[in-house]
């Protein structure tokens, strides 16, 4: 009944999922700001496939797994987490991309462990600060 207890298998699967996510993003060139920019300037629609494919696959998993399995493979139970909606979400979403150039940075956060000290990684680190800040 306690889905948030972190066991070693869960931690490993989480790490693996993060690595796979980061690998997928870099393979899809979503970590290159220039590619993302060309998408946002309507010159390259490839990233639509990345986002659409990911959302579609996630939907399959979200809808399918609770039907196929009685409970999660690593224990606990399937839960839904309804999203809350308020004015902050709109403002936050707008701020999220105010800089325009940094969609890639947000996407590349799981890659931080592998990010080299190239200019592109600076954005990742900056975004990471906000992730770590509430934990401190």
């Amino acid at each position, binding site marked *: 009944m306690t889905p948030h207890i972190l066991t070693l298998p869960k931690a490993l699967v989480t790490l693996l999922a993060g690595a796979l*996510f980061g690998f997928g993003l870099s393979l899809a060139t979503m970590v*290159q*700001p*220039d590619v993302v*920019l060309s998408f*946002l*300037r*309507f010159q390259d629609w490839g990233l639509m496939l990345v*986002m659409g494919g*990911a*959302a*579609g*696959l*996630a*939907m399959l*998993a*979200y809808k399918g797994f609770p039907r196929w399995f009685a409970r999660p493979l690593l224990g606990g139970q399937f839960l*839904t*987490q*309804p*999203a*809350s*909606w308020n004015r*902050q*979400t*709109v*403002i*936050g*979403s*707008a*701020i*999220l*991309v*105010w*800089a*325009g*150039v*940094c*969609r890639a*940075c*947000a*996407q590349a*956060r799981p890659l931080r462990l592998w990010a080299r000290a*190239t*200019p*592109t990684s*600076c*954005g*990742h*680190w*900056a*975004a*990471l*600060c*906000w*992730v770590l*800040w*509430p934990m401190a």
Partner: protein
Amino acid sequence: MTLTSVPVWQLLVGGFLVGYGARLGNGCTSGHGICGLGSLQLPSLSAVLTFTATAFLTANLMAITTKGLA
């Protein structure tokens, strides 16, 4: 080694804004776009539309502005 033509300061500013916006908006691009849309949450759809529209607008405005300066 250069991977991008985007200046470092813009990446830094963008990174901070991404982090701030993601916390304020209850989720980042992937959170709302992949997990939110994947589980058919309407608030996430609004968030995705908001940040995609803002991104399109900003990227094109930035392109026009920098072209004008150069």
